[in-house]
């Protein structure tokens, strides 16, 4: 199953199980979403549970908050993460704080799905990775799957969660895994080890990381597309890296991270977002705090550069296996 199918499947299951689940966003109704993640849902569940909206991200999230407060469980789509900014006020000032403000009287069980990340020549407005803008906000949970099975299991967990969850879908992984070698043909999810998706109510609890590759020499912290890049870099360099797929950024699975770095003594962090104040900064701060006496070298971050996301230079911007590999070598030599 592709990640798109897995997401569609999760939405289908959630809607089938619970009338309170409603799905809406730009082009998600009749057409089924520009990436087809909501294909067939309007036909199956009717126009009042799956519908197109006006092009207003503020309106999408704003109405969803009202619906969540009423008692529904909206799972809305922002067409690209790059377009979430008009809804940012509603997410940060409203969804994230409703429970707190009202001391639990009103709550906001809301999922905001959005395709994220680069690798499709989408330039500045179809490539961004804004996760750090969510992890800084108390009251939100932030999730980034890297496999179809996780996409399904985490999305079902997000919908079941009583609080607002930002669900970032690495669009470069929608149709197949991606290891950063864009010249190589894409392996489809069907033919990939990680392409298997359990049937039915498969749940992956929020807040638990997965160790994708065990290793003794260095810990790589990654999420989304970068998990596959990190695995490719480990293969390519032959360095005995332990690759941790964070899956949920907030709440963070600190115990898994700390246990690994305490074992390896080295840590490389990889993400697509710009370096400065990226989520890697938080990871570095946590790791140096909790593993200070185990660290044998400075923590390295391999990330997007501190520039807007370019078009032609996409593969110079994207943190590929070469850059990650160089970081692995550098940290082993440190």
């Amino acid at each position, binding site marked *: 199953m592709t990640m798109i199918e897995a997401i569609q499947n999760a939405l289908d299951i959630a809607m089938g199980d619970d009338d309170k689940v409603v799905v809406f966003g730009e082009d998600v109704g009749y057409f089924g979403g520009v990436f087809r993640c909501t294909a067939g849902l309007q036909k199956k569940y009717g126009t009042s549970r799956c519908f197109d909206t006006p092009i*207003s991200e*503020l309106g999408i999230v704003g109405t969803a908050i009202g619906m969540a407060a009423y008692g529904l469980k909206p799972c809305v789509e922002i067409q690209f993460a790059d377009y979430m900014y008009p809804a940012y006020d509603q997410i940060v000032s409203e969804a994230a704080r409703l429970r707190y403000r009202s001391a639990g009287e009103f709550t906001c069980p809301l999922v905001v799905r959005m395709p994220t990340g680069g690798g499709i020549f989408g330039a500045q407005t179809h490539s961004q990775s804004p996760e750090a803008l969510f992890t800084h906000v108390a009251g939100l949970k932030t999730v980034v799957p890297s496999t179809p099975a996780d996409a399904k299991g985490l999305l079902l967990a997000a919908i079941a969660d009583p609080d607002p969850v930002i669900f970032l879908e690495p669009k470069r992984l929608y149709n197949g895994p991606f290891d950063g070698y864009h010249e190589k043909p894409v392996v489809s999810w069907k033919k990939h080890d990680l392409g298997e998706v359990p049937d039915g109510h498969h749940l992956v609890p929020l807040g638990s990381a997965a160790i994708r590759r065990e290793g003794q020499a260095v810990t790589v912290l990654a999420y989304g597309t970068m998990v596959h890049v990190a695995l490719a870099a480990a293969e390519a360099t032959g360095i005995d890296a332990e690759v941790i797929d964070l899956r949920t950024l907030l709440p963070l699975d600190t115990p898994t991270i700390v246990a690994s770095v305490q074992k390896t003594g080295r840590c490389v962090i990889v993400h697509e977002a710009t370096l400065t104040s990226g989520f890697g900064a938080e990871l570095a701060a946590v790791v140096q705090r909790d593993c200070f006496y185990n660290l044998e070298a400075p923590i390295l971050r391999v990330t997007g550069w501190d520039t807007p996301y370019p078009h032609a230079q996409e593969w110079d911007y994207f943190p590929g296996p070469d850059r990650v590999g160089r970081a692995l070598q550098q940290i082993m030599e440190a």
Partner: protein
Amino acid sequence: MPDAPRLSLHVPEPEWRPGDQPDFSHVKIPRAGTIRRPEINEKPEDMRDLAFSIIRVLNRQGEAVGPWAGTLTDDELRDGLRHMMTLRAYDARMLMAQRQGKTSFYMQHLGEEAISCAFRMALEPGDMNFPTYRQAGLLIAGGYPMVTMMCQVYSNDKDPMHGRQLPVFYSSKEHGFFSISGNLATQYIQAVGWAMASAISHDRKIAAAWIGDGSTAESDFHAALVFASTYKAPVVLNIVNNQWAISTFQGIARGGSGTFAARGHGFGIPALRVDGNDYLAVHAVAKWAVERARRNLGPTIVEYVTYRAGGHSTSDDPAAYRPKTESDAWPLGDPILRLKLHLIARGLWSEERHKQAEAEVLDGVLAAQREAEAIGTLHTGRRPSPRDMFEDVYAQMPAHLLKQRHEAGY
């Protein structure tokens, strides 16, 4: 182009500033009873006139006249008067309490009491308001305990929000009063979503959104009109035009449109303007709009024409930007005096009963205040625990937050 004149920027200015003599005599105010009452299913395009007029019921003699009269019983009218008097007395005490340092901040309703008090009486249990900070009348008229309101203002141990929110940011699901945000306008679109949810669920409840004149400039207002118009959401979109947004007169937000109600015309949403200082008119129009929503006929915009007689908040001194006499010159009068006159004219009330009621109301407020202060105020008595600061960020406290709570010593 060379022959074109040079451009210049137009910046709207109020007609008078401190030191000037306000004169509203050119403001066209329709006589009470003269504005028609359309059927609730009348087409929006056939009722555009109502966005440029003012629906009024009470005339200068205190009589209720015209097609919008007669929506309330005698008892309801007496209740209405008491609600407004209670709100005013409550405001006065809390304002003073703030000056005495018992809390950090307060916002009063002076002159605007009719709007939230009368609107509340047009709703049914289960309906939900998405209020701003100037609709406490919804709670008072709904019978919400005043002691609890005061505990909220004092941020004491019995504040239902555990001291987390700014004073006057009440919340009561049971009383159809959605948690106040403080970010202007954000809740306008949420009200539309709540109403859509009711429709999706084949429920019967409707929502009421609230916004000030100044805040209609915010993005959420537009989103609300777009979504309400598209999905015909069962929501009443209230605009309280009290002429001022802190120091900024309504001409800045309104721009070239005649009225705020007219904003609805671009969306095919029926829009009514009503005398916000006329309890009867407010109630009648609210009832009409609520019924429209309830019958699945879609949203209605209601603009309440009123005047913010007090400062914006305890942090504000209006004498810095408008004539002190503007409030007295304001032509729509005082909502309490007008309803009182009506009740007297109808033989349902008298000066003595009014004095007596004032005393009773004050007693009630003072008793509540004593009770609240016996619990605590912002800086004294029993206050919410810092431990509480870490609760309700999530349904379940995540590990990192628990760790922080421990670090804080709780």
